[in-house]
């Protein structure tokens, strides 16, 4: 860790402070393993840090790409943890992905004393950084995704290493032990990479800056458009097709399909394989024949699955790195829209995956980073 000008944190001091807890909130995207990271932090507390602890997640929404929150509470060993509510004012806020930093709700309860660990990648844009450092907090950062790729580990262990360093845990071996306990028993072949990722996370996390006068917001108000006074009875929804204002770009994992229109033969295969109704066809002419013609893609709804790239018979759709294409060619808004939406709402896939047994196993095996 770079020589720190920031406040050195000692998580144990918080345990005897007025709140009586040391509270962590993990802000992540489904698939990055934050749930497991939270679980490891919790178990670590009890097994190796000589504290009492609990951990849980924002259940109800954990499809790939969906925002996920993880919560961890530590207190002194003799005390029972009886508060079962989510962590509103974290002592340590850990953000797993740049795409989340623009989301206000991620910063809920963050004050000048909150220590924040950011997974900042080389490619993250200036806007993300400006928004991030505009908040109050003591900021640490590391390129977690790069480290995970280099070490063949997963972001969750890299962030775990960073957490331990920032919390003031002096001996990384406790982290290694919990990795062995959790990951090592079932998947010994993946263990070495994960341990390396953990150590790198511990070593590379660096103090960035602190901001005591940034924006703060502590409200835990749930906002909802329709209340008892104006919601249609029975949960009826009269606003047909309203998901069209969802901006699903946060679901993408770095790649987008690029359209090379000159090559397109308008076969319609991309339209037939796209789960997200991204392709915009309209009546037109191709090689002198009247037919439906592919105008382009509505990238608001593209989740980056790249099914279209796989089926395109003429390579008119190719995989591109999204960061290299800030201005997307052939970005055609959905042709069924009667007018431009006033705004698009950033959204991830939703739904509920509420069991872990299979997923944990699968994710430990590697695959998505």
């Amino acid at each position: 860790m770079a020589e720190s000008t920031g406040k050195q944190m000692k998580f144990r001091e918080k345990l005897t402070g007025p709140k009586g807890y040391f509270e962590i909130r993990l802000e992540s995207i489904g698939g990055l393993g934050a749930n497991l990271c939270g679980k490891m932090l919790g178990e670590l507390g009890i097994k190796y840090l000589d504290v009492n602890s609990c951990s849980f997640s924002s259940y109800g929404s954990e499809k790939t790409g969906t925002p996920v929150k993880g919560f961890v509470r530590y207190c002194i060993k003799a005390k029972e943890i009886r508060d079962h509510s989510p962590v509103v004012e974290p002592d340590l806020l850990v953000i797993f992905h740049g795409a989340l930093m623009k989301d206000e709700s991620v910063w809920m309860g963050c004050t000048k004393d909150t220590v924040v660990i950011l997974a900042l990648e080389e490619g993250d844009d200036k806007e993300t950084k400006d928004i991030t450092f505009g908040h109050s907090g003591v900021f640490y950062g590391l390129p977690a995704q790069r480290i995970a790729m280099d070490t063949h580990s997963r972001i969750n262990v890299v962030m775990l290493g960073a957490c331990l360093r920032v919390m003031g845990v002096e001996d990384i071996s406790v982290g290694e032990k919990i990795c062995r306990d959790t990951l090592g028993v079932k998947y010994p072949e993946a263990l070495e990479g994960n341990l390396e990722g953990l150590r790198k996370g511990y070593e590379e996390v660096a103090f960035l800056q602190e901001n005591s006068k940034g924006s703060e917001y502590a409200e835990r108000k749930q906002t909802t458009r329709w209340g008892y006074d104006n919601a249609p009875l029975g949960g009826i929804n009269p606003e047909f097709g309203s998901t069209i204002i969802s901006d699903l770009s946060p679901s993408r994992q770095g790649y987008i399909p690029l359209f090379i229109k000159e090559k397109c033969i308008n076969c319609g295969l991309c339209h037939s394989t796209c789960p997200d109704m991204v392709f915009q066809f309209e009546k037109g002419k191709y090689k002198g024949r009247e037919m439906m013609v592919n105008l382009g893609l509505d990238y608001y709804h593209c989740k980056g699955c790249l099914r279209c790239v796989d089926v395109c018979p003429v390579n008119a759709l190719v995989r591109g790195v999204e960061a290299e294409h800030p201005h997307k060619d052939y970005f055609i808004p959905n042709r069924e829209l009667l007018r431009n939406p006033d705004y698009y709402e950033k959204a991830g896939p939703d739904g509920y995956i509420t069991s872990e047994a299979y997923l944990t196993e699968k994710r430990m095996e590697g695959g998505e980073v």
Partner: protein
Amino acid sequence: MKNQVITFASGNEMAAKAIKQIGYDLMGYYPITPSTQIAENLDIMRASGETDLIMIAAEGEHSAAGICYGAAVAGGRVINATSANGLLYAMEQFPVQAGTRYPMVMNVVCRTVSGPLSIKGDHSDIMYMLNAGWPILFAVTAQQVYDFNIIALKLAEQVRLPVVVAYDGFFTSHQKCRCFMFTQDETVKAFVGDKKEECPFLDLNHPITVGSYMNEPDLINNRYQLHHAMERADEVIEKLFDEYYEISGRQYHKVEGIGCEDAKEALVLLGSSYDTATEAVEELRSQGNKVGAATLHVLRPFPGKELMGLLQHASDIVVADRQDSYGAGGGNLSLEVRSAAQRYERQMHIKSIIYGLGGKDFFKEDAKEMLTMAGDENRPDFMYYGITKGKKEKTQKPLLAPVTAEQARIHATEVIDHKVTGGNLNAVTAMPGRLAPGHGACPGCGIPVNLNLLLKGIEDPVVFLFQTGCGMIVSTAYPKTAFKVPYLHNLFQNGAATLSGVAEICYRKQQKGEIPPGDIIFVMVSGDGGMDIGMGSALGTALRGHRLLIFEYDNGGYMNTGYQLSYSTPLGAKSSTSHVGKNQYGKTFFHKDMPRIMEATGIPYVATVAESNPTDFIRKAAKAAYYAKTTGTAYIKAISACPLNWNDKPATERRVIEAAVDSCYFPLYEVEQGITTISYDPEKTGKKIPVSDWLSMMGRTKHLLKPEYSHIVLKIQDEIDRRFAELKKRAEQNL
């Protein structure tokens, strides 16, 4: 005190650990969030050989309760776990079991009862159990889940009643925390003791009849016996709590309180909220306020006397309920507390608050706020806490227009004389979307792909019914909806029947001239899970021959709840209820041949489709729509990719589907008016591949390629070959 170890676990995990240590004989269950993890954890232990529990994944909760009842009658030690609508679906069985006096234990992991469908935690389900004749223990913490599971079986067997252990979904079931468990299983087994059967059902030398036909004057005596058993449970519970203290060091009582020794104002609530409220009480008391909080560890028999004893100094009580007994002026807990106060002649002012419905979080601040309401005369005696009024909104111009019949008639497919032409992939892109983009399916999900292919072939207006499943969850998360055409959700036991009702009223209204004439295609959409639990409803609908289309997207598992096995999961595939370990190779029975079952109902059209053959798909959709509007029920089944749980790459799903088709795991054919036609025969095109090629493409089946599982692959291959040979024979002979 016996030796214990510390473990970091959730309520569901602790339930599973207790069940394993007790050494039950059988678990009959059906996965439902948030209780599913119990079965999942036990399945992991089964796979590794830690337990030999017989685990039966029923095709619905009603059957699960039946399996449990039968196993209990036969003298087994039996466990079940369920939640919400699963509990209600099985409800009919519970009084049967209590009335015939067969002990077992069921974990009810409390969740909101639909609809609108919610998966989160409240107490609207458990309160339906109050009249079932089952003692109900209520655990506040994960530790208590473990402890009460152990106590529950002993209680059940002592009073010969089935017992519920209830706890909060998610708050208790999913939060991981420090818990203690006995080091030795023997400690638990010794506490519970051996099972004694008074009249063993399977003693062939002393035959007994269970389940007599009984009216007046006898039934009331049977019920009086049940009442008596419940009274006995009231005595036994306290004794068992004391006995359990001897081995565990943890002393429980029917009621628990904090600050009640002198509290004037007290908050009474159930479950995890009590735990959170204790922190509020401690804080308020440290500031000199005489407040308290109380909870119940037993709901049936209701410990009214003990609760009144605990609250002896309280004059103002707030009872907060995570459910409402609509029209009764309070949730059930508050009604019971009011009745206890009257029965034990206590003068106290009782307010009822409804809070936390649909899993709305409960904070320490909420508990403080509720406590201030207790003595406040300006606050009403009954209120909903945490509701939102809603904002005034400007009316805005719509973003989309509804799809008209004319717009849908794109003339890309045509059905003449039972022959379909068209289905050109370029031409069908002209079909307006009945489903808007922006839905929340996972990247690469097959469901919207299949839906869109289906809809491209239907050139008439569409009315949808979706059964519960990924398809509805990702498309209708309030306050948004992806549907641009009329859409109805019903629970997956009952979708087909519900759509029958919709269709019949439509036809009647058209006949009467109340709505315009014209063809409408009624489409029921279901996953393969819905075609397990809802099979009866679908078969009944098909047998009655309503004019509608049943569309099944088969991704081979209950993907919506974290991939538990369905009856369509391939043999040997791993899932969260069919793990792979030294004692288990994955799912143990073949994938269900649903089209064959539907055929037997004699409906005019049955077809299988796959996105890898998109034109064939679209043409079959057109034909199915034709039959649905002119003749009767049509059924189409698509194999549907699930990158998340098949554990493969989203981009290459179409190739995986193609392999399923080319291996004849999922053959493409149709059965029209009883005549079978194979739509695509990979043997003829030279594309036939062994099933192992397909299995190797997915993480869920890749393990089968290991030499030790070669006999499983062989079995799958044989079954596929047998089914395909039969299909070909029928096609050749025009059957």
